[in-house]
């Protein structure tokens, strides 16, 4: 709208209120000012709207993350309380049975009950120790100082520490980087878990191997860890792999907390982890950690 037109429009509007614009020329300036301010506010409101929308989506994302954490804790508590309860219920059951037979002459039955009671109490104690270990580990991670750590050096240290030198072949290819900014406990736990898994879940007809490839992708350092083991049935276990106390193969000794802890470490670093696996071929874990 041009100036002339605006002027005519304003004169008409003011005449309705019996105000003559020609007698009060300063009114035009005033109205222009008001309009400008209004436009300014309008602009600002639009900016606020976009910001609000951004904040809302961030909040939804945060809520989802919190919900995931709650689900993990809930699932953890469910397993812990179930395991401890089972242990105590076993003790109650066996004691009750002992009470029933104690005055009988079934010595063999009584002896078996006592030995079951002892074994079961020890198992209960081991369980509690295991849970305490997990929470102790988590609290250690909280303020652990970070350094630039050479992945190969740490990996070879761990390999000899867990006494798998010569039994598990570890190959490390430093394609795009050789060190990563992390706390030592996290990197050690991570590598140790993948090494022991590569060995524990090996194929009996093949020498176990773990290939670690260090590469970069956009703003991420990527560690891909590939083993030649028995593989994981992803259809059956894919969704649950990183949940606590999930055991893929119950014939192999384990507690079901390894991948749960790994996922925790990586999430804490703002990274992600993915799995690809084929039965009887092997498993590849791909870890992406933001590079800073």
């Amino acid at each position, binding site marked *: 709208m041009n100036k002339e037109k605006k002027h005519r429009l304003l004169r008409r509007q003011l005449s309705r209120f019996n105000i003559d614009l020609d007698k009060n020329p300063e009114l035009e300036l005033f109205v222009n000012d008001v309009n400008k301010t209004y436009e300014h506010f309008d602009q600002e409101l639009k900016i606020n709207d976009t910001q609000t929308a951004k904040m809302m989506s961030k909040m939804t994302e945060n809520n989802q993350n919190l919900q995931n954490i709650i689900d993990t804790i809930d699932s953890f508590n*469910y397993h812990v309380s*179930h395991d401890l*309860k*089972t242990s105590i*219920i*076993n003790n*109650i*059951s*066996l004691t009750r*049975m002992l009470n029933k037979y104690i005055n009988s002459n079934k010595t063999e039955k009584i002896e078996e009950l006592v030995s079951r009671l002892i074994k079961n109490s020890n198992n209960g104690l081991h369980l509690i120790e295991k849970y305490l270990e997990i929470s102790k580990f988590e609290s250690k991670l909280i303020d652990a100082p970070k350094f630039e750590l050479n992945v190969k050096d740490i990996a070879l240290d761990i390999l000899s520490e867990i006494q798998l030198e010569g039994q598990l072949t570890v190959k490390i290819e430093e394609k795009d980087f050789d060190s990563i900014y992390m706390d030592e406990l996290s990197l050690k736990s991570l590598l140790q878990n993948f090494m022991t898994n590569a060995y524990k879940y090996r194929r009996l007809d093949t020498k176990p191997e773990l290939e670690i490839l260090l590469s970069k992708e956009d703003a991420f350092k990527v560690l891909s860890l590939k083993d030649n083991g028995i593989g994981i049935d992803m259809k059956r276990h894919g969704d649950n792999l990183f949940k606590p106390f999930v055991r893929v193969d119950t014939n192999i000794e384990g507690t079901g907390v390894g991948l749960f802890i790994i996922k925790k470490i990586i999430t804490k670093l703002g990274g992600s982890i993915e799995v690809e696996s084929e039965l009887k071929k092997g498993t590849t874990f791909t870890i992406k950690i933001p590079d800073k």
Partner: protein
Amino acid sequence: MINNKEVILLDDNDDINFYNEDVMQETGLFDTVTVFDSPVKLLEEITERIEKGSPIAGYFLVDIKMPEMDGFEFIDELEILLEDFDDQPVVYMLTTSNHKRDHEQFEKSYLAKKYLLKPLMVETILNEFKS
């Protein structure tokens, strides 16, 4: 064919089986108390019995949390095996808790109608089977 004088106990925990077997025998309600520690092995046994035309136990007491497959997954498989049967066994789920997770699954199941809290008591079983 269903044999109401047989009860099958399924739990991965050996101590629980040892105790439950003793409790079920003490009730005097059954001629045969059969114990399994693996749902997979039990499904194999049932398949075999069906093939041979041997009777299936009238009662099942099934643990919920087992590593190979959970109790509800087992029941789903059992339902499929017994699809053509006129008579169906009565299935009790054995549980240690009142966790909501177990209840949600319980409501969805067709065969599993009731649950029993561990540890089992002779009196509870006698009361339950009176009706």
